């Protein structure tokens, strides 16, 4: 059964908290259109690598082009759209 976009956002946010070990952050604290980098979450370049690992392991997506990465890893909306279009599992 195909997962809805809203459920996928929820699932991705849960993965994000787990993979990045975001202490004291809940799913509802992460807004869909909030920039992941430079925003309140305080993410940095190591987190971007962790997110690439997340996308690979959970959705079978490999981001190898840095330019592409910069366009995808913007906020939850852009990442979820990319997952829907490119997931292999």
């Amino acid at each position: 059964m195909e997962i809805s976009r809203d459920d996928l956002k929820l699932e991705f946010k849960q993965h994000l908290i787990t993979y990045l070990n975001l202490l004291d952050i809940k799913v509802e604290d992460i807004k869909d259109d909030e920039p992941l980098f430079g925003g309140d979450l305080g993410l940095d370049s190591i987190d971007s690598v962790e997110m690439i690992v997340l996308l690979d392991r959970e959705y079978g997506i490999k981001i190898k082009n840095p330019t592409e990465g910069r366009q995808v890893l913007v906020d939850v909306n852009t990442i979820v759209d990319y997952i829907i279009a490119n997931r292999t599992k």
Partner: protein
Amino acid sequence: MYIKEVCAISPQLTYGTEFESGHFELHDKGILYAIEPSYLDFIPASLLRRMGKAVRMGIGAGLPLVKKYPGIEGIIIGTANGGLEDCIRFLNQIVDYKEGVLTPTSFVQSTPNAVAGQLALMGEKTGYNSTHTNGSLAFDNAMLDAQLVLETAVKPMELLIGAVEEISDYNYNIDTLNSHYKSESITNEELIRSTTAGSLCGEGATMCVVANTADHAIAEVVDQFQVCFPGKEELTGLINNFLDKNGMSPKDIDLLLFGNSGDGRTDHWYNDLQQELFPDKQITTFKQFSGDYRTAGAFGCYVAVKLLQGNHRIYGFDHLRRPRTVLVYNQFGGERHGFILLRGNQASIA
């Protein structure tokens, strides 16, 4: 070499004043996990979320000292295993993901020098930075390193030295299969009296500010000595030589602080040495507080400093006379033996 301050995160409430006030934390689950403070009070959440337990404990014990002593120029840490949980997680990922994309955090945090490196970054220390990983003599080697650095310094100098060890589930299971730990259930209060095989597993971080001047010192590290795989008679001779080298003899030692682990297979090293060289001396132990781990000798040093400062409210120590000299002896598995000779600060005693 002089000790100015000590700080420990351990299975006792050493981070506050409870341990020194006589509180004893009883552990009855066979593993002595460290009681950790609220790190978010002084470590930014963005850094804390990446830290494994060993790094967290090391920073938690070391950072307050680094902040309090801005003159600290170098950081020297001893750890047998470093961030073991992250290390094994990383190794497992290599297998699980067939050497594909790996998460960087586990790798970065698992290297033994992560503690000294992170302390240097957070304390903005760009001087000497070193980590010793010589198994159960790692802390002894860190101390020897500090001694050499301070003795060759041409000006007053302060260093942070310490030891860190964490319990990893993976390693605990391997060490259990290797008979390191007791098969029966006992508490840490009963540990030292036990004569069966194995000990109780512990963990913790101990940090000390050391200097080459006696100003505001709370104790002096007179000397330290380490030896691997000695014979019993050889060890007795080596200790005599060690004391003689420092202008002392067994009668000059006021208190022996031993690392008895309740392991009937190896505690005879302590008992025999005491009977041979120190038959009429005060003797006490420290692993009832910390459990056994490879760098527990650093926690022994912490306890020795408290005793030299005249603290006899520590649980079970009320009968001890305040010592002027303490010999800390710790060995692991009967193979590697470390001795640290400490003297109280005469000015503070007066």
